[in-house]
């Protein structure tokens, strides 16, 4: 069984779930809201290892999924939305903690495992990501990080650095590899700079996404491709069915 975990407004996740079904896979779309009203949630941790059951009632039971595509940003706390603020905050902390532990150990191929700072996966601080990208061999724009800086400060800086010819692209990177690299070059209308793919792989490994599904924003101007940010929530539709096939292929790699 495939599981696509997401927030309610995640259209890329809805698209992916639909494509899995179109291709004959048994796919279960689980929103944060559905998870919040689970019939039963249990996780055991001990000398015999870690196992868990999440019983979603009529929707199904998650215990031994083959593939989990995790795009969960928010903890499953819809059931607590009318509680007093203090109780709601406590429940949010508890549900975040449970979800983090559950997804860290759920069996099967999981993209992404959560990180303590983001349920959806690796999420280094943007400044650290930029430093790591530079160390990995990617071009990184000059940028100031001052008061009132936009959340898209690196993207904006990359566009400024690139000048009037700047164009913005989004790469979907699975396990350190750019998905549909040929399609990316066609959209850009130019070949990737020499060593670019290797730099992306080094970057993914350095931020904990050697086994991960991430998105990388790139600003292209002439022959230069600037790193402009990363996200654990890539826009999946950019990679299309090439990504869907790659994700299905992960299941075959998981040892029985």
């Amino acid at each position, binding site marked *: 069984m495939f599981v696509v975990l997401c927030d309610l407004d995640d259209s890329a996740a809805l698209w992916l779930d639909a494509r899995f079904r179109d291709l004959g896979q048994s796919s279960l779309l689980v929103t944060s809201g559905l998870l919040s009203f689970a019939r039963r949630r249990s996780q055991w941790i001990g000398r015999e290892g870690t196992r868990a059951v999440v019983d979603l009632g009529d929707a199904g039971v998650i215990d031994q999924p083959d593939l989990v595509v995790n795009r969960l940003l928010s903890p499953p706390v819809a059931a607590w939305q009318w509680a007093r603020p203090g109780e709601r905050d406590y429940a949010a902390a508890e549900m975040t903690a449970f979800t983090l532990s559950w997804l860290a150990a759920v069996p099967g191929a999981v993209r992404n495992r959560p990180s*303590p700072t983001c349920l959806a996966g690796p999420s280094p601080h943007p400044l650290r990501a930029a430093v790591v990208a530079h160390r990995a061999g990617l071009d990184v724009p000059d940028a100031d990080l001052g008061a009132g800086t936009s959340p898209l400060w690196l993207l904006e800086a990359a566009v400024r650095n690139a000048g009037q010819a700047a164009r913005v692209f989004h790469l979907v990177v699975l396990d350190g590899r750019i998905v549909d690299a040929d399609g990316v070059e066609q959209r850009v209308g130019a070949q990737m700079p020499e060593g670019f793919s290797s730099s992306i792989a080094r970057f993914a490994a350095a931020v904990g996404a050697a086994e991960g599904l991430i998105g990388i924003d790139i600003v292209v101007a002439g022959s230069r491709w600037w790193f402009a940010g990363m996200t654990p929530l890539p826009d999946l539709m950019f990679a299309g069915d090439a990504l869907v096939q790659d994700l299905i292929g992960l299941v075959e790699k998981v040892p029985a």
Partner: protein
Amino acid sequence: MSVMVWGVPTESPVALLLEALSRNGADPVVVHPRQFLEQSVDIGLSGGELRGSIRVQDRTTDVGDIVGVYVRPIEPELVPELKDVAADDPAMQRARAQFDALMAFTEAAPDALGCRVASRLSAMASNMSKPYQAQLVQKGGFDTPETVVTDDPDEARAFVRAHRGAIYKSVSGVRSIVSIVDLDRDAERLELIRWCPVQFQENVRGRDVRVHVVGDEVYAAIVDSSATDYRYARAQVGEDATLAPYALPDEVAERCVVLARDLDLPFAGVDLKLADDGRIVCFEVNPSPGYSWYETAAGLPISDALARWLMRAA
């Protein structure tokens, strides 16, 4: 070369560290969360390298000169001067921007500058989920208590009976007080867990040991108390716990050092129990230990070790 301390100077762990830095000849840059009006942080990227400066009153320090940072801040919303101040108030915005910039600096500095940071806030986050951290602790070669996190009262009862008693505590770091489960007394309350999973653990009996890891060094204290949670011994059993230095076996000390390193926590408090059945069980790793009690009551020179670690340029 400078050491930066980001925290409230009068808070005891910070105060002890500042004294130790002074004893070791350092003149640290102290970034006080409550004095955000007298401070500024200016950082950015140039040629892919981290650059910028931190100004505290009349003293300006280039970030490239900072070799070590101790991180123990408080969020702007918890600063007394900003209590009940709206998020869009200029003072709150200034404090928030300063906090965010300092967080950015401490997150990036180890990779960018080889700077020692104890510890990155992102690394501290592993402690926000105790069962998640338990999985990492197991990978580090320690036993952890048999645990179930559940919202099923029947499952909880079965676990308690199977282990002939159990304790319960929060799953996150919030309201984290250890209490004994009493299935008769707690029968009605147990039904409430249907709303939110609760963590139940076997009640491991034995002596508590707190191990402070500072880089490659360890400083351990053994606890004497009959309380379920020795930190709250006075409330639970009417008298405070007492502490004494403890000579940790080398192999266990090494495992603690490696575990802290794997968690990216160069300064950490590892909570162990020397179980009556011979196991050494690890309960959790505190990512920002409030070590003052262990230093003063057990005579462990933790602040000196931390000062030396921060001053040693990587």
